[in-house]
């Protein structure tokens, strides 16, 4: 209220406007970080491409999120496309799912037009790390896809377990009946587009609960 007047609540002299503004901005930062359970603001080193971000945000349901729940969209980094995108390894960096209950997960993929006869048979495996760097692939889901464009493939939430570091790896394996006959020639067609704004992403719904809440519930 400008210099000279006193604070109506505690009587101390009111702050100069600029000092009050600085104090309020600092309070806002603390309030938001506390509300998001963060100790400091995140440093974004690789922001997702704007086009992919815009497209993905359309998937998030509008309206408010139920309390203690979060919706997350995580973009894949593609490794090991080897011969075709149909055998891509999709790697996701998820802040550890520890202390959180995942109750809804879908993998969004962009399917290219397949030959007129083709139904695309798609299998999704999760890379499960083992001891001494050995690991194995666990089948998560199988889908038959009959049309091109974006497809939201439901994954069993109970099956998805990020590594301690929060890394989640999904291996794709897709083919059409036609591929089976041409596989010998090695000309596997490209059935998926995983580049640019057709980058695959995971859509997750997470119930955030505090450590030890499970015990409380059991009791």
């Amino acid at each position: 209220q400008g210099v000279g007047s006193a604070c109506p609540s505690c009587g101390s002299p009111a702050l100069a406007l600029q000092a009050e503004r600085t104090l309020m901005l600092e309070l806002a930062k603390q309030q938001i970080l506390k509300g998001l359970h963060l100790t400091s603001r995140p440093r974004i080193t690789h922001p997702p491409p704007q086009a992919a971000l815009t497209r993905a945000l359309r998937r998030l349901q509008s309206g408010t999120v139920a309390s203690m729940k979060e919706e997350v969209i995580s973009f894949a980094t593609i490794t090991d496309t080897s011969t075709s995108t149909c055998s891509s390894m999709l790697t996701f960096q998820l802040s550890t799912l520890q202390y959180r209950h995942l109750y809804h997960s879908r993998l969004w993929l962009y399917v290219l037009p397949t030959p007129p006869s083709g139904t695309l048979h798609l299998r999704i495996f999760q890379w499960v790390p083992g001891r001494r760097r050995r690991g194995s692939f666990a089948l998560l889901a199988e889908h038959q896809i009959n049309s091109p464009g974006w497809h939201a493939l439901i994954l069993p939430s109970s099956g998805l377990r990020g590594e301690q570091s929060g890394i989640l790896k999904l291996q794709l394996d897709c083919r059409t009946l036609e591929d089976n006959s041409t596989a010998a020639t090695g000309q596997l067609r490209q059935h998926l587009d995983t580049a640019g704004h057709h980058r695959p992403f995971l859509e997750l719904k997470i119930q955030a609960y505090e450590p030890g809440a499970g015990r409380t519930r059991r009791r």
Partner: protein
Amino acid sequence: TPTCELENPLCCRRNYYVDFQELGWRDWILQPEGYQLNYCSGKCPPHLAGSPGIAASFHSAVFNLLKANNPWPAGSSCCVPTARRPLSLLYLDRNGNVVKTDVPDMVVEACGCS
């Protein structure tokens, strides 16, 4: 609850908008562009004790106790938030994932006297 005006010394809600651009946080908070960091300010004279502006029955109970016991209580009552609402945020986490969450009790909606 009255919104604070300059000449109003009594308990009221002061509206205070914070733009995330001014915090330098628009690179990781995608939506909204800012939020109301409202707060409560003002005097709470005895006759306003317990008048949170939205639950008058509590106020009348306190007022009757005041009248029955002593007109001038030793303690004073304070101007505090009595209703808050959540803030929906869409932000990028440290891994570049998009997170949408509702932060509870972020925006003060109403003020009253304790």
